[in-house]
């Protein structure tokens, strides 16, 4: 049975550095290469930022639960929260080619999560709340 790594943090931006350290440790244990490690850390950072910003409206009294485990040749990261139901996939994709003034500053986080991870999926669970699952193939 593969080990599951768990971390619980409050919904506050000052927790993000600790979350990044946690993910870095998991990737190190699973011997991910440097680029994959950076990609997973960034995707999780963006996902947690979205949870704090949109699901909890930047209130710091919420909880974010992180679970990481290896399944076959993939790292599976699950992020759960009990904030407002928020489907990050509903965020429209950003314009990446327009002139400066036409560029919107929002929507880049979700776009990056999709670029950096192999799969991103979301569901709202009756008791578990928002459940975001991201997977990354292990390249070592």
């Amino acid at each position, binding site marked *: 049975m593969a080990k599951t790594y768990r971390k619980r943090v409050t919904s506050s*931006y*000052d927790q*993000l*550095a600790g979350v*990044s350290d946690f993910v870095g440790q998991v990737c190190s244990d699973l011997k991910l290469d440097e*680029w994959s490690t*950076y990609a997973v*850390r*960034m995707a999780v*950072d*963006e996902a947690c*930022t979205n949870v*704090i*910003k949109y699901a909890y409206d930047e209130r710091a009294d919420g909880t974010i639960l992180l679970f990481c485990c290896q399944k076959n040749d993939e790292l599976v990261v699950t992020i759960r929260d009990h904030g407002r139901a928020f489907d990050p996939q509903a965020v429209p994709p*950003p*314009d*990446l*080619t327009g002139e*400066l*003034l036409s*560029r919107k*500053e*929002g929507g*880049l*986080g979700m*776009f*990056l999560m999709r*670029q*950096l991870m192999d799969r991103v999926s979301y569901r709202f669970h009756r008791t578990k709340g928002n459940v975001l699952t991201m997977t990354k193939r292990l390249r070592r």
Partner: protein
Amino acid sequence: MEIAEKRFKRVDLIAVNGRVDADTAALLQDSLKSHLEAGRFRLVLDLSEVSYISTAGLKVLLQTLKEVRRFNRGDLRLAGLQPRIKETFDLTGLTPLFKIYEQAIDAVGSY
């Protein structure tokens, strides 16, 4: 994250050190804003000591770029992007919007 600032005659150099995420992006925004409020619109941001920048940080850079280029009054030029940071700029389509230099001194000299 730490910020060090140096004022030249025509250019302000802002050197950032550490991690720019949703927690620290506000500090960077405050710093950049203070230059704009002082009427300083020719800026160089030295990112050579930045290990990570999230989209919260990119958003600050994009907002500032729009501000400084208004009325052709200035620019925000970047220097010293580490490979991972450069990759983030490429993925998000920001690279063509900024003038990017290897060294801060070159970015300062470009004005």
